[in-house]
């Protein structure tokens, strides 16, 4: 019998409406209401004074690049980055090489996770074979192999007919569909938001209308089929409005926002730095404010990082030629605290909710709460500590972060998975 006693922390658990100074007790990897005096005497003790103790964060959108692109990241390094960012549960996207469009590849990912992961990994499978958008992947077999959702993330199913059938078919298994909303006919060669800034920089524009169209399409198909469609990395004000209307009608639509779309705008592209290049692109201040408003009123359900590692030699190129995507796991908390708490005056429990209960409930994952009996997946952070983020010193294999070298406020001090410390604030244990 192993036990752990975290004392004197500000305990925040939105799932149980807890927000008070107090202690957390862990027995055999699960949270407990209390420990006996004998257990307390033997328990490992963690001093939580000055720290927030909350459920380990849940990220439903990461790219760990395994199999096939382990020069960028692996399940081992990706989960280390997750732990360093306070995340104890992550959901991997299937755009690996080969894409995770069959049960064998899912099994490979599960095996690698069992061997190398330091946090909990849930895979997703593709909607279509090879993510090519032509034919349905074996969704039933993927479900049996353990996927928690299907998605062609990075690509977007362009055929409305195929998307309709995918929604109906996946609905039979209770599998949500996660969609990267992008009308590709409107974004050929596009590398940044279309508007004043793309006009100035002479870069090909990606109009928000291309997102709005597919968001609308998905709302309509969810209404028609009754399927749960989750809209990934929403970036546009107009899309937030469409989602708000859909939710008012009670449709099974959910949506996420990334830390970078909350914190940055297209103005960051003035220097053509590919570490600000991602898909969907950074948009305008009005869009950014709409995302904040969407999180405030529940239109957007959760934060997801879209952690997308690329090597230096891939990113260090002409802007047009650099791949899309940035790291997100290790900077998510301080970046989001900066936007939502310090700027937009959210209360800390609201932010913790967006990182824990809500993403877990969205995909039905047994995570995101400190309820007694739940797995002791816990994050301890100091919301006030400022630190310099050095991507080189980070846990990810890659370094493509727009926050590299910046001083951030809010720091993960300890991450526990099943009651075991996996990150102690400095290194992976």
């Amino acid at each position, binding site marked *: 019998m192993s036990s752990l006693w975290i004392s004197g922390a500000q305990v925040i658990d939105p799932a149980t409406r807890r927000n008070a100074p107090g202690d957390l007790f862990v027995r055999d990897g699960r949270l407990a209401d209390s420990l006996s005096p004998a257990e307390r005497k033997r328990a490992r003790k963690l001093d939580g004074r000055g720290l927030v103790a909350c459920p380990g964060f849940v990220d439903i959108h990461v790219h760990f690049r395994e199999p096939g692109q382990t020069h960028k990241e692996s399940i081992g390094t990706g989960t280390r980055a997750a732990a360093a960012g306070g995340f104890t549960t992550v959901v991997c996207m299937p755009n690996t090489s080969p894409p995770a469009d069959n049960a064998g590849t899912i099994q490979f990912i599960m095996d690698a996770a069992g061997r190398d992961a330091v946090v909990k990994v849930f895979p997703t499978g593709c909607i279509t074979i090879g993510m090519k958008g032509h034919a349905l992947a074996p969704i039933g077999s993927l479900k049996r192999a353990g996927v928690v959702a299907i998605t062609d993330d990075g690509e977007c199913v362009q055929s409305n007919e195929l998307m309709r059938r995918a929604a109906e078919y996946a609905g039979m298994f209770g599998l949500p569909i996660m969609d990267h909303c992008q009308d590709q006919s409107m974004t050929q060669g596009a590398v940044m938001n279309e508007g004043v800034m793309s*006009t*100035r*920089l*002479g870069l090909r524009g990606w109009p928000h209308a291309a997102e709005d169209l597919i968001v609308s399409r998905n709302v309509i198909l969810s209404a028609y089929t009754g399927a749960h469609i989750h809209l990934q990395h929403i970036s546009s004000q107009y899309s937030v409005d469409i989602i708000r209307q859909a939710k008012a009608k009670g449709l099974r639509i959910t949506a996420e926002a990334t830390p970078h779309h909350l914190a940055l705008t297209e103005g960051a592209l003035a220097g*053509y730095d590919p570490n600000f290049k991602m898909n969907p692109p950074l948009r305008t201040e009005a869009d950014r404010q709409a995302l904040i408003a969407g999180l405030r009123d529940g239109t957007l359900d959760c934060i997801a990082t879209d952690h997308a590692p690329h090597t230096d030699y891939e990113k260090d*190129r*002409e*802007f*047009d*030629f650099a791949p899309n995507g940035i790291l997100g796991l290790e900077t998510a908390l301080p970046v989001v605290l900066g936007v939502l708490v310090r700027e937009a005056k959210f209360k800390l429990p609201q932010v913790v909710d967006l990182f824990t209960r809500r993403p877990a409930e969205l995909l039905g994952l047994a995570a995101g709460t400190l309820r007694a009996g739940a797995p002791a997946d816990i994050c301890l952070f100091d919301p006030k500590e400022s630190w310099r983020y050095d991507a080189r010193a980070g846990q990810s294999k890659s370094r493509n972060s727009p926050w590299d070298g910046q001083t951030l406020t809010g720091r993960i001090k300890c991450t526990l998975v099943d009651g075991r410390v996996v990150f102690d604030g400095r290194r992976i244990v």
Partner: protein
Amino acid sequence: MTWNRRHLITVEELSLQEIDQIHATSAAFKKILRRSVKKVPVLRGKTIVNLFLEPSTRTRLAFDMAAKRLSADVISFDAASSSTTKGETLRDTAENLQALNADMIVIRHAASGSPLYLSRLLDIPVINAGDGAHEHPTQGLLDTFTMKEHLGALQGRKVVILGDILFSRVARSNIHALTKMGAAVTLVGPSTLVPHWFTDLGVTVSHDLKSALADAEVVMLLRIQHERQASSHFPSLGEYTSMFGLNMARAAWLSPRAIIMHPGPINRGVEIDSELADGPRSVILEQVANGIAVRMAVLYLCAGGQPDHAVTAGGEDLP
């Protein structure tokens, strides 16, 4: 007034004073080009690399000739023969050129922002000879130089830029130069090629050719790129010509003293009729000639020369 800039990446970042310095230096070099010996030794012993990673004829010839008029050694490097086709990155290509002791790089690249990227990697001056749809600073500088020769100061002058503005780096460099010099700039063309976002750069956007051309003192035509037709930007070249092509009847709407400009290469019968391109109001070939002087000025200044020395140029007393 000293010149302190080592790179020329955009017109947008230049001050009005710097534009004037380049123009004054260009005027001094233009005199040299009229002499029987058209060469000055100011860049003798210097090596300039023309790194042209996108096809170009006139810009490359003009930079080549400008460098030779300044007595520099010129190495040309183009996409077809370069190791970029073997997958070498721009960083590696550029660092190799610097390791070969090149003194300056002139770069043409299809990707916007590439010259800025290069200028951050290298210790030697980088001159932008056109990057994607972003800027073509020497073209903007030579166009405004040509306008000044004909009209004097450009403050308050009505300048119309007509054609495919969206994809044009020439338009952007001209817009920045002209607005800094106080000209009233109107962009005209189909709404798909002249989006309203350009108004943010301090210009007027119009889709009505007649009102835009009324009393204009300069009309600058931009090449209509045939490949745009294959996309959805306009229906056909024929329709473009019927709506926006410049012909004799429409040229009558211009100010009587108006000049007609085009950065080339021109599509006769598409954006401009031959009789206008070859007519008395056309300054198209003057633009080409001025392109040498302006590029000499830019190479000279970015290599460390000073405007005052060039103005006093007898040639040999230049540093």
